[in-house]
Protein backbone atom coordinates (compact mmCIF):
# COMPACT_ATOMS: atom_id res chain seq x y z
CA UNK A 1 0.00 0.00 0.00
CA UNK A 2 1.40 3.39 -0.97
CA UNK A 3 1.02 6.49 1.15
CA UNK A 4 -1.42 8.10 -1.29
CA UNK A 5 -3.54 4.94 -1.28
CA UNK A 6 -3.55 5.08 2.48
CA UNK A 7 -4.78 8.66 2.52
CA UNK A 8 -7.37 7.94 -0.17
CA UNK A 9 -9.12 5.41 2.12
CA UNK A 10 -10.60 3.58 -0.87
CA UNK A 11 -12.49 6.70 -1.95
CA UNK A 12 -13.88 7.47 1.51
CA UNK A 13 -11.11 9.91 2.46
CA UNK A 14 -13.49 12.78 3.21
CA UNK A 15 -15.68 10.79 5.61
CA UNK A 16 -12.87 8.93 7.36
CA UNK A 17 -10.46 11.84 7.81
CA UNK A 18 -13.17 14.33 8.78
CA UNK A 19 -14.22 11.90 11.51
CA UNK A 20 -10.70 11.44 12.81
CA UNK A 21 -9.81 15.14 12.52
CA UNK A 22 -12.91 16.29 14.36
CA UNK A 23 -12.37 13.72 17.11
CA UNK A 24 -8.79 14.95 17.54
CA UNK A 25 -9.95 18.57 17.86
CA UNK A 26 -12.67 17.77 20.41
CA UNK A 27 -10.38 15.55 22.51
CA UNK A 28 -7.53 18.10 22.48
CA UNK A 29 -9.90 20.89 23.49
CA UNK A 30 -11.04 18.88 26.51
CA UNK A 31 -7.46 18.77 27.78
CA UNK A 32 -6.26 22.25 26.83
CA UNK A 33 -9.27 24.18 28.17
CA UNK A 34 -9.12 22.90 31.80
CA UNK A 35 -5.32 23.27 31.96
CA UNK A 36 -5.66 26.87 30.74
CA UNK A 37 -8.53 27.53 33.18
CA UNK A 38 -6.48 26.20 36.10
CA UNK A 39 -3.48 28.37 35.24
CA UNK A 40 -5.72 31.44 34.90
CA UNK A 41 -7.40 30.72 38.22
CA UNK A 42 -4.10 30.16 40.07
CA UNK A 43 -2.78 33.41 38.62
CA UNK A 44 -5.83 35.36 39.80
CA UNK A 45 -5.59 33.77 43.26
CA UNK A 46 -1.91 34.67 43.54
CA UNK A 47 -2.68 38.27 42.56
CA UNK A 48 -5.38 38.50 45.22
CA UNK A 49 -3.04 37.13 47.83
CA UNK A 50 -0.35 39.66 46.96
CA UNK A 51 -2.82 42.53 47.10
CA UNK A 52 -4.11 41.51 50.50
CA UNK A 53 -0.57 41.47 51.87
CA UNK A 54 0.10 45.10 50.86
Amino acid at each position, binding site marked *: *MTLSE*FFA*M*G*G*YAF*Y*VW*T*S*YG*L*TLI*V*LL*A*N*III*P*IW*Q*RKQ*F*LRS*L*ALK*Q*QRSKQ
Partner: protein
Amino acid sequence: MFLIPDFVGRFFHRMASPPHFYAFTEKLMPWLVVLFLLVTAAGLYGGLYLAPSDYQQGDSYRIIYIHVPSAWMSLFIYIMMAVAGGIGLVWRIKLAEIVAISSAPVGASFTFIALVTGSLWGKPMWGTWWVWDARLTSELILLFLYLGVIGLYGAIDDKRVASKAIAILALVGVVNIPIIHYSVEWWNTLHQGPTVTKMDKPSIHVTMLVPLLLMALSFKIYYVIAMLQRARVELLQRERNAQWVKNMLAEKQ
Protein backbone atom coordinates in the same frame (compact mmCIF):
# COMPACT_ATOMS: atom_id res chain seq x y z
CA MET B 1 -17.03 -3.63 54.11
CA PHE B 2 -15.53 -7.07 54.66
CA LEU B 3 -15.49 -7.61 50.89
CA ILE B 4 -13.17 -4.66 50.25
CA PRO B 5 -9.49 -5.11 51.16
CA ASP B 6 -8.21 -2.67 53.74
CA PHE B 7 -5.69 -0.89 51.49
CA VAL B 8 -8.44 -0.12 48.93
CA GLY B 9 -10.54 1.49 51.64
CA ARG B 10 -7.55 3.51 52.82
CA PHE B 11 -6.80 4.62 49.26
CA PHE B 12 -10.32 5.99 48.70
CA HIS B 13 -10.35 7.57 52.12
CA ARG B 14 -7.14 9.46 51.35
CA MET B 15 -8.29 10.38 47.83
CA ALA B 16 -11.35 12.06 49.34
CA SER B 17 -9.01 14.59 50.96
CA PRO B 18 -8.67 17.58 48.55
CA PRO B 19 -4.94 18.37 49.03
CA HIS B 20 -4.03 14.71 48.68
CA PHE B 21 -6.18 14.34 45.57
CA TYR B 22 -4.64 17.44 44.00
CA ALA B 23 -1.06 16.31 44.63
CA PHE B 24 -1.68 12.69 43.68
CA THR B 25 -3.36 13.49 40.33
CA GLU B 26 -0.46 15.77 39.45
CA LYS B 27 2.03 12.93 39.95
CA LEU B 28 -0.22 10.42 38.16
CA MET B 29 -0.79 12.57 35.05
CA PRO B 30 2.46 11.91 33.08
CA TRP B 31 2.04 8.14 33.51
CA LEU B 32 -1.54 8.29 32.29
CA VAL B 33 -0.52 10.38 29.26
CA VAL B 34 2.28 7.96 28.28
CA LEU B 35 -0.06 4.98 28.65
CA PHE B 36 -2.72 6.77 26.61
CA LEU B 37 -0.30 7.60 23.77
CA LEU B 38 1.04 4.02 23.59
CA VAL B 39 -2.41 2.39 23.53
CA THR B 40 -3.76 4.95 21.04
CA ALA B 41 -0.79 4.54 18.70
CA ALA B 42 -1.20 0.75 18.74
CA GLY B 43 -4.97 1.04 18.21
CA LEU B 44 -4.69 3.48 15.30
CA TYR B 45 -1.90 1.51 13.64
CA GLY B 46 -3.96 -1.67 13.91
CA GLY B 47 -7.20 -0.02 12.82
CA LEU B 48 -6.07 2.26 10.01
CA TYR B 49 -3.18 0.22 8.59
CA LEU B 50 -3.09 -3.45 9.62
CA ALA B 51 -6.80 -4.27 9.56
CA PRO B 52 -8.17 -5.23 6.14
CA SER B 53 -10.98 -3.36 4.36
CA ASP B 54 -14.53 -4.49 5.05
CA TYR B 55 -15.93 -6.73 2.32
CA GLN B 56 -19.17 -4.70 2.18
CA GLN B 57 -18.20 -1.21 3.34
CA GLY B 58 -14.65 -0.84 1.97
CA ASP B 59 -12.50 1.56 3.97
CA SER B 60 -15.43 3.68 5.21
CA TYR B 61 -15.90 1.19 8.06
CA ARG B 62 -12.64 2.45 9.62
CA ILE B 63 -14.75 5.16 11.27
CA ILE B 64 -15.78 2.31 13.60
CA TYR B 65 -12.52 2.70 15.55
CA ILE B 66 -13.64 6.03 16.92
CA HIS B 67 -17.41 5.82 16.48
CA VAL B 68 -18.05 2.70 18.54
CA PRO B 69 -15.61 3.45 21.41
CA SER B 70 -17.07 7.00 21.60
CA ALA B 71 -20.59 5.62 21.79
CA TRP B 72 -19.53 3.18 24.52
CA MET B 73 -17.87 6.02 26.42
CA SER B 74 -20.98 8.19 26.12
CA LEU B 75 -22.88 5.52 28.08
CA PHE B 76 -20.04 4.58 30.43
CA ILE B 77 -19.33 8.17 31.48
CA TYR B 78 -23.01 8.83 32.02
CA ILE B 79 -23.20 5.92 34.44
CA MET B 80 -20.00 7.09 36.18
CA MET B 81 -21.49 10.57 36.49
CA ALA B 82 -24.76 9.25 37.92
CA VAL B 83 -22.97 6.92 40.38
CA ALA B 84 -20.56 9.66 41.54
CA GLY B 85 -23.51 12.06 41.81
CA GLY B 86 -25.44 9.49 43.84
CA ILE B 87 -22.49 8.96 46.20
CA GLY B 88 -22.21 12.73 46.64
CA LEU B 89 -25.93 12.96 47.29
CA VAL B 90 -25.97 10.27 49.99
CA TRP B 91 -22.59 10.70 51.74
CA ARG B 92 -21.90 14.37 50.90
CA ILE B 93 -18.38 13.54 49.72
CA LYS B 94 -17.02 16.64 48.01
CA LEU B 95 -14.71 14.70 45.71
CA ALA B 96 -17.62 12.56 44.44
CA GLU B 97 -19.54 15.74 43.56
CA ILE B 98 -16.48 17.02 41.72
CA VAL B 99 -16.02 13.78 39.77
CA ALA B 100 -19.70 13.91 38.76
CA ILE B 101 -19.62 17.43 37.31
CA SER B 102 -16.14 16.95 35.80
CA SER B 103 -17.38 13.90 33.89
CA ALA B 104 -20.18 15.83 32.17
CA PRO B 105 -18.19 17.78 29.53
CA VAL B 106 -16.12 14.70 28.64
CA GLY B 107 -19.28 12.60 28.29
CA ALA B 108 -20.96 15.30 26.23
CA SER B 109 -17.90 15.40 23.96
CA PHE B 110 -17.94 11.65 23.36
CA THR B 111 -21.68 11.75 22.69
CA PHE B 112 -21.10 14.54 20.19
CA ILE B 113 -18.28 12.56 18.54
CA ALA B 114 -20.44 9.42 18.36
CA LEU B 115 -23.26 11.39 16.70
CA VAL B 116 -21.06 13.24 14.20
CA THR B 117 -18.89 10.27 13.21
CA GLY B 118 -22.08 8.20 12.93
CA SER B 119 -23.44 10.81 10.56
CA LEU B 120 -20.20 10.81 8.54
CA TRP B 121 -20.42 7.04 8.33
CA GLY B 122 -24.15 6.98 7.59
CA LYS B 123 -23.90 9.33 4.60
CA PRO B 124 -21.80 7.00 2.37
CA MET B 125 -23.36 3.77 3.71
CA TRP B 126 -27.05 4.60 4.23
CA GLY B 127 -27.21 7.56 1.85
CA THR B 128 -28.36 9.94 4.60
CA TRP B 129 -26.73 12.04 7.31
CA TRP B 130 -29.52 11.51 9.81
CA VAL B 131 -32.71 9.52 10.45
CA TRP B 132 -35.06 9.92 13.39
CA ASP B 133 -34.79 6.30 14.45
CA ALA B 134 -34.56 4.87 17.96
CA ARG B 135 -30.77 4.58 18.28
CA LEU B 136 -29.93 8.00 16.88
CA THR B 137 -32.74 9.80 18.69
CA SER B 138 -31.98 8.26 22.09
CA GLU B 139 -28.28 9.13 21.68
CA LEU B 140 -29.28 12.71 20.85
CA ILE B 141 -31.38 12.79 24.03
CA LEU B 142 -28.26 11.66 25.91
CA LEU B 143 -26.40 14.70 24.55
CA PHE B 144 -29.23 16.96 25.80
CA LEU B 145 -29.07 15.27 29.22
CA TYR B 146 -25.34 16.04 29.45
CA LEU B 147 -25.91 19.62 28.33
CA GLY B 148 -28.76 19.88 30.85
CA VAL B 149 -26.42 18.76 33.65
CA ILE B 150 -23.76 21.30 32.62
CA GLY B 151 -26.32 24.10 32.27
CA LEU B 152 -28.04 23.34 35.58
CA TYR B 153 -24.71 23.25 37.43
CA GLY B 154 -23.70 26.59 35.95
CA ALA B 155 -27.05 28.17 36.83
CA ILE B 156 -26.84 27.51 40.59
CA ASP B 157 -24.29 29.60 42.49
CA ASP B 158 -23.99 27.43 45.60
CA LYS B 159 -21.99 24.49 44.21
CA ARG B 160 -23.04 22.10 46.98
CA VAL B 161 -26.68 22.74 46.03
CA ALA B 162 -25.84 22.58 42.33
CA SER B 163 -24.22 19.17 42.85
CA LYS B 164 -27.39 17.86 44.50
CA ALA B 165 -29.49 19.13 41.61
CA ILE B 166 -27.34 17.58 38.87
CA ALA B 167 -27.08 14.28 40.76
CA ILE B 168 -30.88 14.00 40.76
CA LEU B 169 -31.09 14.97 37.08
CA ALA B 170 -28.33 12.47 36.19
CA LEU B 171 -29.97 9.66 38.17
CA VAL B 172 -33.36 10.25 36.53
CA GLY B 173 -31.70 10.27 33.11
CA VAL B 174 -30.22 6.80 33.69
CA VAL B 175 -33.54 5.47 32.27
CA ASN B 176 -32.22 6.47 28.86
CA ILE B 177 -29.14 4.21 29.06
CA PRO B 178 -30.81 0.79 28.55
CA ILE B 179 -33.06 2.41 25.94
CA ILE B 180 -29.99 3.41 23.91
CA HIS B 181 -28.34 0.04 24.35
CA TYR B 182 -31.33 -2.10 23.39
CA SER B 183 -32.79 0.32 20.82
CA VAL B 184 -31.33 -1.66 17.92
CA GLU B 185 -33.06 -4.80 19.19
CA TRP B 186 -36.37 -3.36 20.39
CA TRP B 187 -37.13 -1.29 17.30
CA ASN B 188 -36.61 -1.68 13.60
CA THR B 189 -33.79 0.64 12.78
CA LEU B 190 -31.36 1.61 10.08
CA HIS B 191 -28.54 1.33 12.60
CA GLN B 192 -26.78 -2.01 12.45
CA GLY B 193 -27.04 -4.43 15.37
CA PRO B 194 -24.29 -5.10 17.89
CA THR B 195 -21.19 -6.79 16.49
CA VAL B 196 -18.93 -6.97 19.52
CA THR B 197 -21.05 -7.44 22.62
CA LYS B 198 -22.32 -10.82 21.41
CA MET B 199 -19.59 -12.31 23.54
CA ASP B 200 -20.17 -15.92 22.56
CA LYS B 201 -19.58 -15.25 18.89
CA PRO B 202 -18.69 -11.68 17.92
CA SER B 203 -19.37 -11.16 14.21
CA ILE B 204 -16.12 -9.27 13.69
CA HIS B 205 -12.75 -10.65 12.69
CA VAL B 206 -9.95 -10.61 15.26
CA THR B 207 -7.74 -8.27 13.15
CA MET B 208 -10.57 -5.72 13.37
CA LEU B 209 -11.61 -6.55 16.93
CA VAL B 210 -8.20 -6.05 18.58
CA PRO B 211 -7.72 -2.43 17.39
CA LEU B 212 -11.33 -1.70 18.32
CA LEU B 213 -10.76 -2.90 21.88
CA LEU B 214 -7.46 -0.98 22.03
CA MET B 215 -9.28 2.20 21.02
CA ALA B 216 -11.93 1.50 23.64
CA LEU B 217 -9.15 1.24 26.26
CA SER B 218 -7.50 4.38 24.87
CA PHE B 219 -10.73 6.38 25.26
CA LYS B 220 -11.17 5.06 28.81
CA ILE B 221 -7.70 6.31 29.76
CA TYR B 222 -8.46 9.57 27.99
CA TYR B 223 -11.62 9.97 30.07
CA VAL B 224 -9.60 9.61 33.28
CA ILE B 225 -7.09 12.22 32.07
CA ALA B 226 -9.67 14.76 30.87
CA MET B 227 -11.97 14.24 33.87
CA LEU B 228 -9.08 14.69 36.33
CA GLN B 229 -7.98 17.90 34.57
CA ARG B 230 -11.49 19.30 35.01
CA ALA B 231 -11.66 18.01 38.57
CA ARG B 232 -8.44 19.86 39.50
CA VAL B 233 -9.92 23.19 38.32
CA GLU B 234 -13.21 22.55 40.05
CA LEU B 235 -11.43 21.55 43.27
CA LEU B 236 -9.28 24.70 43.32
CA GLN B 237 -12.30 26.91 42.72
CA ARG B 238 -14.24 25.33 45.57
CA GLU B 239 -11.27 25.27 47.94
CA ARG B 240 -9.94 28.73 47.11
CA ASN B 241 -10.11 29.81 50.76
CA ALA B 242 -8.68 26.59 52.17
CA GLN B 243 -5.32 26.67 53.92
CA TRP B 244 -3.71 24.08 51.62
CA VAL B 245 -4.40 26.24 48.54
CA LYS B 246 -2.88 29.28 50.28
CA ASN B 247 0.16 27.23 51.28
CA MET B 248 0.57 25.96 47.74
CA LEU B 249 0.46 29.49 46.32
CA ALA B 250 2.93 30.70 48.93
CA GLU B 251 5.35 27.92 48.00
CA LYS B 252 5.21 28.84 44.32
CA GLN B 253 6.09 32.48 44.88
